[in-house]
């Protein structure tokens, strides 16, 4: 355990920050900025302190260190050796531009800082008492009229897990829509889970790896904590080979030894061909396959005729190169890994494609071995603090079945066998009266798919409650808006997946205290739930004062209290081994790594309904997804960038500016997203960089427009736009790509299929 010095002898609890700064100073410090010129730190009578944070911009908790001067945070940087924000022991901690910009968010005057309730058709400000009372009454009425089981829990980036107990156990709804399976990377999420890998397939044990394939993954831009780009850079320094599979050029492709500019949605074919080579060359881990896997015969059969030459026709990648990479990967194994993400996670055929890719892990035996697919462990958090306190929580949702499985109307959806809801199905459920209300907490389904249908659904719903920081079409149409404090204003223990990190064999925890009081009337998520619970007569179930106290019970099985962790920002805990499957096996139906999912009952049913194999196979693009045609000749897909995560960061000016600067378009007024289009396609359509364009797809034409960015970085025929802008989002400039999305989804997992056939049209005047 490393010693961390306390700054200047101050005890940095929230209360003492108030004391040193003076309550008045704190109240007026919001929005306070330093003017330039003299060096204020040189003046001796201004108190300067250090505070910690855990970045909640992409929600992967890099450690933050803030300089607080006279009660106002004036600078922000990383925490050295932090599990997420550094490359590990003896290395510096940094913050990416999003983390830097959380300082802007801390003082952003555009944030919602007051509760709002809807009265006589309009939203109006209310104080907390009023808001809690109103919400409690509406929830009770809702239960009476529609039944609590028709209320959807769409909570996303909350910093505690209390919401699931509140809505599930207490309110009694079985309806819950999460990110991973339904809107993020549903296919791989399902494949990973069922094959025995879990859902952390984004990551590789970078620092020990000799061969890294970033498959549909732009790890130098969309990283889950900076430990990732840092880890890959270390690996490259040590001579590792980096391969990128992506139809577009990205910063990751730039640093790769090989960039495979693959035909979109043909990843499954490439993976099978690689498997073919590895099996043919007998480069697979025979012992592992023999002892730890199930379904190898089915796999061998599946790859038998999938030669690199066959794959070249399908993927456009040279057969010799496919062979080279397959051999390189297998020879480097077990120190070889594949980091796969949304590139292989957001089109209709991606479940099987990811199954084909993940099979390669089992094949070369890199699972939980140094440099390969690490099975990261998290600390032994007590997930149920209520249990810790001996509180007997009701289980009101226990008897309820989610609508997806309860009613015949949804019999056409194969994914009902493996999950409880689908994003694209919710509007239908609302139409059928099976879902009549919803709570959102730091979430926005309007970006996740079927925007038009969801907009209508929100109107139809009887009760919409949001807990969020910014205005958008969702919060504006809600019945109750609760303003949550942002992470820097709360005592936060990161309980969301504190596992993968720069420490490949240590568990860890990270926490931070509030830098100062929240802006306006904002409260922490926990306090909001507690206040609401009290109004609903559930006060007895919430003995904890605040989020810090709740967190202490989450830490019941850990040797540190919340304060002890927050003092140092992070602590390293126990070591965990490699090859954990030796003792524990795999959490699958067969207890082994499964090439073939025939033993997974739910999946097998889905597969049968769809007429697909339970084993790896080639499912061509267009089997369920859209294919370009004469009317809509272009592939249209979403991308992410290093400046924004989800849709929550777009309102921040620093990020908008840098994003515009990256495209050399900072001199325009426009600060929305860019429609990236290859010069050949652009020329055909008379489009130049800077022109405003509209995207059309079968579902319709967007009202939104975006600015065209003509570049050779994207494939001819493949246009993309950054996610999280436009209608429905908190930053409405630009185009919400899902406004031209209808019901397209992956029938196996329910994941929204974000790939569309489209056309792009230049708008009159720019």
């Amino acid at each position, binding site marked *: 355990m490393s010693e961390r010095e306390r700054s200047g002898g101050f005890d940095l609890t929230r209360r003492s920050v108030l004391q040193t700064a003076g309550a008045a100073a704190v109240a007026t410090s919001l929005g306070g*900025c*330093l*003017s*330039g*010129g*003299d*060096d*204020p*730190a040189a003046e001796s009578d201004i108190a300067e302190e250090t505070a910690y944070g855990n970045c909640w911009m992409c929600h992967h908790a890099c450690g933050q260190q803030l300089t607080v001067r006279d009660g106002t945070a*004036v*600078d*922000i*940087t*990383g925490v050295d050796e932090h599990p997420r924000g550094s490359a590990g022991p003896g290395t*510096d901690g*940094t*913050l*990416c*531009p999003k*983390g*830097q*910009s959380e*300082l*802007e968010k801390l003082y952003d005057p555009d944030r919602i800082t007051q509760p709002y309730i809807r009265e006589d058709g309009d939203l109006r400000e209310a104080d907390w008492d009023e808001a809690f009372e109103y919400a409690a009454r509406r929830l009770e009425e809702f239960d009476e009229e529609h039944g609590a089981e028709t209320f959807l829990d769409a909570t996303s980036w909350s910093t505690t897990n209390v919401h699931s107990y509140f809505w599930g156990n207490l309110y009694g709804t079985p309806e819950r829509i999460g990110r991973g399976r339904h809107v993020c990377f549903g296919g791989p999420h399902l494949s990973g889970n069922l094959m025995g890998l879990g859902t952390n397939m984004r990551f590789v044990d970078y620092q020990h790896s000799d061969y890294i394939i970033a498959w549909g993954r732009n790890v*130098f*831009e969309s990283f889950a904590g*900076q430990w990732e*780009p*840092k880890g890959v*850079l270390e690996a490259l320094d040590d001579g590792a080979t980096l391969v990128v599979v992506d139809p577009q*050029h990205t*910063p990751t492709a*730039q*640093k790769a030894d090989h*960039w495979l*500019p693959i035909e979109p949605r043909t990843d499954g074919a490439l993976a099978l061909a690689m498997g073919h080579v590895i099996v043919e060359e007998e480069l697979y881990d025979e012992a592992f396959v023999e002892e730890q896997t199930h379904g190898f015969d089915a796999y061998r059969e599946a790859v038998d005729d999938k030669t690199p030459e066959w794959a070249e026709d399908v993927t456009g990648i040279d057969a010799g190169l496919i062979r080279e990479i397959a051999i390189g990967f297998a020879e480097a194994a077990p120190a070889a890994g594949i980091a796969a993400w949304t590139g292989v996670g957001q089109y209709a055929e991606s479940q099987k494609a990811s199954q084909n890719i993940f099979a390669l892990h089992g094949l070369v035996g890199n699972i939980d071995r140094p440099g390969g697919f690490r099975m990261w462990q998290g600390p032994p958090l007590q997930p149920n603090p209520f249990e810790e306190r001996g509180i007997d929580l009701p289980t009101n949702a226990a008897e309820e079945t989610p609508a997806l499985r309860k009613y015949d109307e949804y019999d056409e959806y194969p994914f009902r066998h493996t999950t409880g809801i689908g994003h694209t199905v919710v509007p239908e459920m609302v139409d059928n009266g099976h879902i009549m209300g919803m709570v959102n907490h730091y979430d926005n389904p309007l970006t996740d798919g079927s925007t038009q249908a969801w907009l209508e659904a929100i109107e139809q719903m009887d009760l919409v409650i949001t807990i969020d920081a910014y205005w958008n079409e969702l919060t504006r149409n809600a019945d109750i808006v609760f303003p949550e404090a942002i992470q820097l204003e709360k005592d936060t223990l990161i309980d969301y997946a504190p596992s993968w990190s720069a420490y490949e064999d240590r568990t860890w925890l990270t926490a931070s205290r509030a830098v100062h009081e929240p802006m306006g009337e904002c409260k922490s998520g926990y306090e909001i739930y507690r206040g609401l619970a009290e109004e609903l007569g559930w006060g007895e179930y919430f003995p904890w004062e605040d989020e810090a106290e709740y967190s202490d019970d989450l830490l019941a099985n850990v040797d540190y209290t919340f304060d002890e962790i927050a003092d140092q920002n992070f602590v390293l805990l126990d070591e965990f081994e490699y090859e954990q499957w030796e003792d524990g096996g795999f959490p699958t139906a067969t207890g082994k790594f499964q090439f073939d999912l025939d033993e997974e009952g739910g999946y097998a049913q889905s597969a049968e309904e769809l007429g697909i194999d339970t084993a790896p196979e080639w499912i061509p693009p267009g089997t369920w997804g859209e294919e370009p045609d004469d009317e809509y000749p272009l592939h249209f897909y979403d991308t992410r960038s*290093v*400046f924004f995560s989800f849709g929550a960061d777009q309102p921040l*000016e*620093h*990020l*908008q*500016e*840098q994003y515009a*600067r*990256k495209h*050399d378009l*900072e001199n325009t007024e426009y600060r929305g997203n860019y429609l990236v289009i*290859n010069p050949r396609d652009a020329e055909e359509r008379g489009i130049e960089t800077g022109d405003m364009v509209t995207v059309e797809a079968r579902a319709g034409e967007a009202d939104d427009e975006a600015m065209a960015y003509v*570049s*050779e*970085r*994207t*494939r*001819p025929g493949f246009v993309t736009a950054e996610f999280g802008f436009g209608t429905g989002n908190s930053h409405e400039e630009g185009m919400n790509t899902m406004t031209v999305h209808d019901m397209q989804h992956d029938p196996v997992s329910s994941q929204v299929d974000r790939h569309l056939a489209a056309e792009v049209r230049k708008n009159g005047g720019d």
Partner: protein
Amino acid sequence: MGEQWLFYFDPNRCIGCHACSVACKQRHDLEADADDWRTVTHVSKGEYPDFEQVPVSMSCMHCHDSPCESVCPANAIEKREEDGIVTVNRDRCIGCHYCAWACPYGAPTYDDTGLMSKCNLCLGEGPGGGHGQPERKTPEEGGSEPACVADCVGDAIKAGPKSEVMAEASDRAAERFEAGAYEGRVIVEPMEEDADIAESIREGETASGTVTYEG
């Protein structure tokens, strides 16, 4: 005279994330759309799929010959003896923009007042910060780490007294620097894939691409 402070940049490690730009703005309380003291430019070439894009992070290089200082009619720009950091005294600046022309890196920026401001190696805070400050200390000596260095995700930017930075640079980078690359104003790592080609050109084995220009 104290040792000259120098910047170092490694395009192989730079991931083009612009954290350096935002970190600089946070440290100096600069507006998002003005005072771009540290910029990241993405230089690209080629046709898909032979496409390349390399990010380059730049700021004032505190050049040993500080052309900005020479042209400033108001003597507002000073290259300090102690540490070679080039600062601007905004009480003397007349906003004539001569320094912007003289600067090979486009470092001077002008704000609403019309006066010049630029990187001061975090010797001070804010526009004009650093002017008149005592000798810059390294972080080991208790000085601040420059914001861009502190928050470069890829650890691609370094700054410090010349001997210290040179010691951390690769041999190839040091060689090029000594041979006059970038006029000895900043140490830049050669790009991995082209280091061999560049060396070969230097050794006269390969003809250089199109142009050799000296002016």
